[in-house]
């Protein structure tokens, strides 16, 4: 099934023409509505009239997560708040969140894109779908919710955190589809097995995203639950889930290209690479009103394929992700930067600024341990004080990351001091192939 055949199957020429027209309009819109872009364009000597087609995009400046931070919270919005109907936020590299705003039209397009993705996976109005992403500032829950609702499926807004309730309702409601992170789904499959419910579920499809996963995990999910699993991609800065999704042929993720123009950049020169070559993915939001972004660098490493797919769609596909350009981690679907831990620990006098994050996956659930050194000045002979300190640090980290971590206090001077770039993370998960 294809949700929007006109847009998803248009010829490459038609797509290029549509993207060109939309880019020209976008550049004009941003120049006149976002001071930051106006100044940025003026500084490189580009006026709206200089952009005549999608090929001219290479002359436009990039946007980064730091630009969003520097203009926190609403500095990059192109409309007054009276036209913003929803705010979402994700982790910034330091204390400040990355904030995005949506107009009513933005939300409609978002739902349209998610509807395309879920239809790609096989979801129809006859399905009962459990949305098991977190609902809230995170785009996962509400984004998937609106898309499934647009299709007309029966939406069960589970959110996260109660696996037992989820499995019970999966059986009782006869759920046929689920949207959640792939690691959470593997965990759910274990809960189902423990409860002896595996043969009672009616699940057919899973739309998984918000974190990278390997082909091995994909196969494992499919065989354990006897379902078809699909990879959905997105990021809040660009929109949220639904920027791209893979079809039943699993030959890369189809990008909703009429709304998000993808580029893959050489990491050193930042010029676009040839299709098939790996580089950093960047998006230009062609139709967004609330917070449109030009050439937003995602820091995700992938490659592009613009050849037609067997499914009939002509949209460009991005390959399974090959890694990150920066040190961002995705833990239980939450974006985490080591610098956030660093900033949080500064508030705690009793420990030194040295820390080590150990990320692992136990029973398919991500775990985060943060090791910190006790400061000499606060050395104590009482267990109680160390335990209280452990709790205090765990609380500070929870506040900073929105994620619970196990805190381990280690001997002073025991964490490795490296020369040059410090290593703060040991990630024992296998998230990327090759």
């Amino acid at each position, binding site marked *: 099934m294809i949700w929007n055949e006109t847009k998803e199957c248009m010829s490459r020429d038609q797509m290029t023409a549509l993207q060109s027209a939309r880019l020209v309009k976008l550049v004009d819109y941003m120049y006149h509505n976002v001071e930051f872009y106006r100044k940025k364009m003026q500084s490189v000597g580009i006026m709206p009239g200089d952009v005549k087609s999608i090929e001219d995009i290479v002359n436009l400046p990039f946007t980064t997560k730091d630009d969003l931070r520097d203009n926190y919270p609403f500095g990059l919005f192109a409309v007054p708040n009276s036209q913003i109907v929803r705010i979402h936020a994700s982790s910034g590299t330091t204390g400040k969140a990355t904030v995005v705003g949506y107009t009513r039209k933005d939300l409609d397009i978002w739902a349209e894109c998610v509807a395309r993705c879920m239809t790609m996976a096989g979801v129809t109005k006859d399905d009962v779908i459990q949305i098991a992403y977190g609902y809230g500032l995170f785009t996962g829950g509400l984004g998937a919710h609106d898309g499934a609702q647009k299709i007309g499926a029966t939406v069960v807004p589970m959110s996260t955190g109660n696996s037992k309730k989820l499995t019970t309702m999966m059986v009782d409601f006869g759920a046929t589809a689920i949207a959640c992170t792939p690691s959470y789904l593997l965990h759910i499959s274990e809960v189902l097995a423990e409860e002896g419910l595996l043969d009672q579920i009616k699940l057919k499809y899973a739309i998984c995203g918000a974190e990278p996963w390997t082909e091995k995990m994909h196969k494992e999910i499919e065989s354990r639950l006897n379902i078809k699993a699909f990879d959905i991609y997105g990021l809040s800065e660009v929109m949220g889930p639904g920027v791209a999704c893979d079809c039943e042929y699993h030959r890369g993720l189809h990008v909703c290209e009429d709304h998000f123009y993808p580029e893959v950049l050489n990491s050193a020169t930042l010029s676009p690479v040839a299709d098939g070559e790996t580089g950093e993915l960047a998006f230009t939001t062609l139709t967004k009103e609330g917070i449109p972004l030009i050439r937003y660098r995602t820091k995700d490493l992938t490659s592009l394929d613009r050849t037609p797919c067997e499914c009939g769609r002509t949209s460009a596909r991005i390959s399974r992700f090959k890694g990150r350009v920066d040190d961002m981690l995705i833990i239980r679907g939450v974006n985490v930067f080591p610098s956030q831990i660093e900033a949080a620990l500064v508030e705690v006098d009793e420990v030194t600024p040295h820390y080590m994050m150990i990320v692992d996956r136990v029973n398919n659930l991500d775990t985060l341990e943060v090791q910190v050194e*006790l400061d*000499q000045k606060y*050395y*104590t*002979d*009482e*267990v*109680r004080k*160390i*335990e209280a300190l452990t709790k205090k640090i765990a609380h500070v980290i929870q506040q900073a990351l929105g994620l619970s971590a196990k805190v*381990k*206090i*280690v*001997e*002073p*001077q*025991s964490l490795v001091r490296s020369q040059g770039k410090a290593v703060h993370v040991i990630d024992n998960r296998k998230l990327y192939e090759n």
Partner: protein
Amino acid sequence: MFAKQLTVFIENRTGRLSEVLGVLKDHNINILSLSLADTTEFGLLRLIVNNAAQGKEALTENGFSSLLSDVSIIQIPHKSGSLRELLKVIDENGVNIEYMYGLSIESDSAYVVLKASDVEKVDKILTENGVRTISCEELANL
């Protein structure tokens, strides 16, 4: 009067305790008593040694952090109920006991190492009640 206790924070790793004890041995520090408070992640090794200051120095030189803290080492007669008598006096004065462990330095009577929430106050109570406590100097001569 107070005695000095040497405390070492030790991660739960095989051989770590032995390394600490090795440093003390190499510097001729004699351990008179010890208590190891253990949790799942770490242990606090509390030591009464003949020379706590020297012990701390030796540990620091070898990369171990440690802490010197004041504790009371109290003589208790070898008689049923004598420890309880002592605690009763401390309790009546509203002082909490953080931890306590035994020390054996002579055969006629027993000793306890006691760390209270208010070390000064306990010391005063003990003096007022004529209880014998041991000083650092005495420990050094043992």
